[in-house]
């Protein structure tokens, strides 16, 4: 029985010693931070700034493509869908395209033919959906969009031919005549300037010709666009689907170069910020060589000392990373708002990277001075030499 008692007493004593050990460890950590507030705050500040800058840069790097792709969609269609052999597209083709696209793009139908003006001059007439064109071809300079039936949008070069004084005019196609009012003019500097645009309803009831072309502006990475092309081809086998290489290749080039520049800049900035943390923290740890010497003189083991300074560094790194991450997301969102007029959405995938990077940098800046100091006798340090 007595052996049992002494055993359990020993256990309790051991666990107490352990508890005191642990609480002493945390007390030292905490007191170190509280007593040397200025230096600790400076180190934490450096860490927070570095983590914030790193977060903002990584966030921007991940998001810049999506943002720029949106800008590039203002170039208009990057996919064209044409009925095979110049035939009209089947009914409901536009709905099928929309169900493939979802919210990833805009589509506009076009029906084209050559009609004659009242003087017998051949002219290209296009039936389309003006509301969709407004979204698709934002560069069109239009004086006034048609809003009623039998109103036409006349290209600036076609205007002197059909309606020099903005007067109503007639167009004929295979014996059918339509009477049109000029709602406004369109100027693009390209083929559109020589054409006349009607609403699809007017166009179909006049000529009976259905749209043969769908122009599609789809957003997404090259792989996503390729998938959309395939889905469209499968959905509408009666049509040829082809990418507008002119736009897609230019876009890919510009995006690639911009992204590479942002990456280079981000690397430089993160490197600088990391070095800033390293020098501040190393200074701090080096500065506390007297603490180190006293602990060692009182019999602390190398493992305990390493553990102490490493724990301190890791705690600092983690705290700095989390605060910096929140700040960095704010910076990225602000840059997005200012520059792209749309906030850069926070990427939480960046957090583990920033966290791991911060802890590695802080550990490094704690371990380096410690391994230097370990070789020195505590007495030498305490004498201040």
């Amino acid at each position, binding site marked *: 029985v007595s052996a049992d008692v002494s055993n359990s007493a020993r256990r309790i004593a051991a666990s107490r010693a352990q508890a005191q050990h642990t609480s002493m460890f945390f007390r030292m950590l905490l007191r170190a931070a509280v007593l040397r507030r200025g230096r600790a705050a*400076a180190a934490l500040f450096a860490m927070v*700034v570095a983590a914030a*800058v790193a977060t903002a840069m990584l966030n*921007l790097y991940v998001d*810049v493509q999506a943002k*720029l792709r949106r*800008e590039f969609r*203002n*170039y208009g269609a990057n996919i064209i869908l*044409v009925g095979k052999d110049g035939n009209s597209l089947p009914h409901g083709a536009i709905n099928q395209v929309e169900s493939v696209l979802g919210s990833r793009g805009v589509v506009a139908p076009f029906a*084209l033919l*050559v009609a004659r003006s009242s003087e017998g*001059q*051949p*002219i*290209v007439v296009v039936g389309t959906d003006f509301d969709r064109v407004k979204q698709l*071809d934002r*560069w069109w*300079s239009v004086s006034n969009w048609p809003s009623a039936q039998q109103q036409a949008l006349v290209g600036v*070069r076609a205007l002197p031919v059909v309606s020099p004084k903005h007067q109503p005019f007639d167009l004929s196609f295979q014996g059918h005549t339509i009477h049109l009012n000029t709602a406004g003019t369109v100027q*693009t*500097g*390209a*083929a559109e300037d*020589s054409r006349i645009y009607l609403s699809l309803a007017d166009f179909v009831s006049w000529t009976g010709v259905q749209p043969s072309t769908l122009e599609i502006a789809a957003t997404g990475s090259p792989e996503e666009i390729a998938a959309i092309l395939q889905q469209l081809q499968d959905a509408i086998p009666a049509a040829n689907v*082809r*990418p*507008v*290489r*002119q736009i897609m*290749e*230019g876009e890919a*080039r*510009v995006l690639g*170069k*911009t992204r*590479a*520049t*942002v990456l*280079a*800049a*981000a690397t*430089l*900035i993160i490197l*600088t*910020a990391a*070095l*800033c943390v390293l*020098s*501040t923290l*190393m*200074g701090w740890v*080096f*500065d506390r060589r007297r603490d180190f010497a006293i602990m060692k003189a009182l019999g602390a083991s190398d493992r305990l000392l390493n553990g102490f300074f490493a724990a301190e560094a890791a705690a600092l790194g983690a705290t700095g990373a989390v605060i910096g991450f929140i700040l960095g997301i704010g*910076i990225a969102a602000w*840059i997005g708002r*200012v*520059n*792209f007029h749309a906030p850069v959405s926070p990427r939480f995938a960046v957090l583990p990277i920033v966290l791991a990077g911060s802890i590695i940098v802080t550990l490094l800046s704690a371990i380096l001075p410690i391994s230097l100091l370990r070789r020195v006798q505590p007495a030498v340090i305490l004498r*201040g030499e």
Partner: protein
Amino acid sequence: MFVRLVYESFRRQKRRKLLAGAAITLGVTVATAMIAVATDIGDKINRELRTIGANLLVTPQEDTLDVEIGGVNLKPPSDGAFLNEADLPRIKGTFWHNNITGFAPMLPVNVTLQRGGKTENLTLLGTYFAKRVAFGKEEFNTGVRSTHAWWKVSGAWPDDDSRDVLVGERLAARLSVKPGDEVILSGRNVRVSGILSTGGSEDDQIVGPIALAQEILGKPGAVRRVYVSALTKPEDAFARRDPKSMSGPVYDRWYCSPYPQSIAFQLQEAIPHSHAEQIRQVAQNEGAVLTRIEGLIFLITLAALFASALAVSAAMATAIFERRAEVGLMKALGAGRLAVASIFFAEATLLALIGGFIGFAAGGLLARQIGRSIFDSQITIPPVLFPVILVIAVFVTFAGSAAAIRKAVGLDPVFALRGEL
């Protein structure tokens, strides 16, 4: 004494000086490289945007309406007006000729193609591929290979002086034509040098040297339209004003800005009986894209400047803090606050100048490397930047050391010497 103190401090504390100097050098390197990249990015991206195609189009002033659907010209080919090919080199004589990266004349003509007993009516598009054109003493290469960068050829590009042609890929598949085949084009034997893929209407056409199209049309020197690719400045309200309504100096400012409008205006002046206009799809959007990318890089550069300023301050603060004992000694020997501070500031200036000098050179190399690896072209640093960078380096170093120096001179020498703080 003062100079000796500073000199000895550099001689005896090499490690500390090296650390602080390295931080300043690195900060200046990053700042220089980023400023260089930011000042040049607009021009670089502008050139990349030119791969989307020409942004200006020159047509005859008195032209009849285009009647064209899907690249098939339904207008009688000899109808309408033409530009004169001999006038085209004048494009390089305009005020903004250095901004014009290339031009390509186009002349579509209707031809018949005979092959294997079949006859087909097609469009032959006459153009320049990479033609040597001379204006005055200046010689340059221009044509679709530079203005229409997305055109891809399997086989060989034809020579501009040859009678070789390219066949569009859909047409080639339909006729089963391969590079090296001979076809009869409106009674002329021509060789197919390659298959052209553009993703546009040219895939159903034949593209050949402009001389061949002019010969078939029977109008030597005729050009239907000219695509011009120019580096332009994003359009603003001033660009959209009508030049005719402007007074002298305002007009000069408009004329001498590389807006799409003013370059179009100058093209119109250079080529007789022509009408030049921006292709809005290209010209309008590139301004938007350019502004966004420039803005992004500008903001990133600010971040880089901030980060490097911080790194420099941190290094300086640490370096000064480590020298408390020295300060204590100086003060114990009777040095005033001013004397101590001026020694530290002199050291900081010296470090900043050395670090700034090395950093500027390293930053230049770094910017060049970035330019070469990303844009395949040089990014050069304007020499004007050198004094600016030095001043910034000194200023940032001062600002970074100021707090630490103030603290150091305020120390009680007794405590500082005992190492108690």
